[in-house]
């Protein structure tokens, strides 16, 4: 490459590179620094090196919450992936207009604030709203009652938040999938259900796994639904981090917990890359 072109490239990249350095690299570096800093009640933290906060992570409350968050996240990710896959498959097979309409609905719910979704669920699960009366009519409840806060409400709201994300992550792969294979299987006499389970599902193993993993990561980071729809025993690690930072004013502890969560997330995200590699088309 000529020197002139190199210079031009650098002149174009100077601003975004500086912005990325100043507002992404430095802040994340600071997180590492604060996690080993000394907790200072007045100035929140002061420079230093100690592993007090990482030692504090070994406390049973943190470990229990982490385990509970992991179970919750896997449950939510598995449920939403199982629900999303057939849906994404149907949408990808539609004519263009239908696809666009569904995509707009998905994006609108996807972009909706965690706060607004949690609030909507709280309203929907309230005593005076029809849902509890429908449950009474179905015989599931003796009389109308408030259906939150509890674990079920947290799971339902999280599934609602994650569902559009999982659909949109699986959708590209499904829309590029060669549908002739499924058609061939059907021509040879396989039932639609059988084609679905023995042809389509195995072909899409990679995208399904990677979207489930990303859904897990997303669920781990959510803060509002467990706070609004859960009792303290339904609080996730994200709630602990938020409380340590804001209510507790313990930034080093919040930073150390964030790093723990970051490490777990990066490991999971790395897994999607590995899964993706294994799915490159082979000849």
């Amino acid at each position, binding site marked *: *490459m000529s020197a002139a*072109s190199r210079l*031009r*490239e650098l002149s*174009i*990249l100077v*601003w*975004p590179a500086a912005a990325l350095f100043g*507002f*992404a690299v*430095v*802040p*994340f570096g600071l*997180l590492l620094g*604060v996690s080993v800093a000394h907790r200072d009640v007045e100035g929140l933290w002061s420079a230093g090196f100690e592993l007090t906060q990482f030692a504090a992570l070994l406390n049973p409350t943190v470990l229990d919450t982490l385990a509970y968050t992991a179970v919750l996240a896997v449950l939510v990710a598995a449920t939403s992936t199982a629900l999303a896959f057939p849906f994404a498959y*149907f949408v*990808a097979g539609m004519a*263009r207009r239908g*696809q*666009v309409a*569904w*995509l*707009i*609905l*998905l*994006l*609108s719910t996807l*972009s909706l*604030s965690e*706060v*607004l*979704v949690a*609030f*909507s*669920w709280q*309203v929907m699960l309230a005593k*005076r*709203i*029809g849902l509890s009366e429908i449950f009474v009519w179905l015989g599931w409840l003796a009389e109308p009652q408030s259906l939150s806060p509890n674990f079920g409400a947290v799971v339902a709201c999280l599934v*609602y938040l994650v569902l559009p994300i999982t659909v949109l992550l699986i959708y590209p792969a499904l829309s590029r999938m060669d549908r002739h294979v499924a058609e061939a299987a059907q021509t040879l006499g396989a039932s*639609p259900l059988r084609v679905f389970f023995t042809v389509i599902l195995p072909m899409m193993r990679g995208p399904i796994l990677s979207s489930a993993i990303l859904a897990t990561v*997303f669920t*781990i*980071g*959510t*803060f*509002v639904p467990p706070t*609004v729809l859960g009792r303290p025993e339904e609080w996730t690690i*994200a709630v602990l*981090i*938020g409380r340590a*930072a*804001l209510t507790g004013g313990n*930034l080093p502890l*919040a*930073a150390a917990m*964030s790093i723990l969560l*970051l490490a777990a*997330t990066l490991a999971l*995200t790395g897994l999607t890359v590995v899964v993706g590699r294994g799915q490159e088309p082979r000849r």
Partner: protein
Amino acid sequence: MSGALAAGARRLYLALFGLFLAAPLVIVIGVSLNSTRRMSFPPEQASLHWYAVFFSDPRWLSAFTTSLAIATGAALLAMAMALPLSYAVWKFHTRLSQALVGLGMLPFLLPGVVVSVVYLIFWGWTGHAGKIEDTMMSHAMFFLAVPLVTVNLGFHLIDRALVEAAQTMGARDSDVFRTVVLPLILPYIVSGLIFVFVLSLNEYLIAYMVAGLNVETLPIKVFNSLRLGFEPTMCVGAALFMLVGTAAFSLVALLGDLPKLLGAESRRD
């Protein structure tokens, strides 16, 4: 026979799925139309009473305009970074530009709570805490991945023959960019802006941790009001955001190829 059965099952599944997605939205909009303070659905004597209350209450109105200002700033800032980065990757495809794009994608892939702690600490450290521009910049960095994806896709779809033809006829790089490249990627720029705008509008946790006490956005206001009990104006705020989101994405679909933007193979039908 089994074909008809499959089609019926497919319809039923789609209908239930749509119902699940729409239920909270419909109920919140329904409750916002009540004319009394009570939370009931279907609404009693539907009216736009609480909408009038919302727009005449300076606190709700200011939360709404703060949200709009942050979302606009964040979208423009994110695009100001994404455009040169994507251009450099497309024009020079060097390892440096690709590495920078990779770096820009990263924050979006991390749990929101971690990013919010990162910026809480960072803005406190700069001594510039609690300002609206802090929230804008933090949102721009968090959502940078979105315009990077849309604009990269736009560049990727440019027919190189058009660029070569312009160059053969003597156009300089800046002319090519202005007259050939920019018009072709414009729809992708606009979609990227809209996506960041809507996402930033709705983001709660980062906005709250960075400057939530001074800079109250609508989600922050709704969350704060949640603790004090039900207020019909909260439903109005939520309903407005749903409408803004749906309108914005319909606009994206109108401007360009939404399925392709979301990664689908283009098909002719």
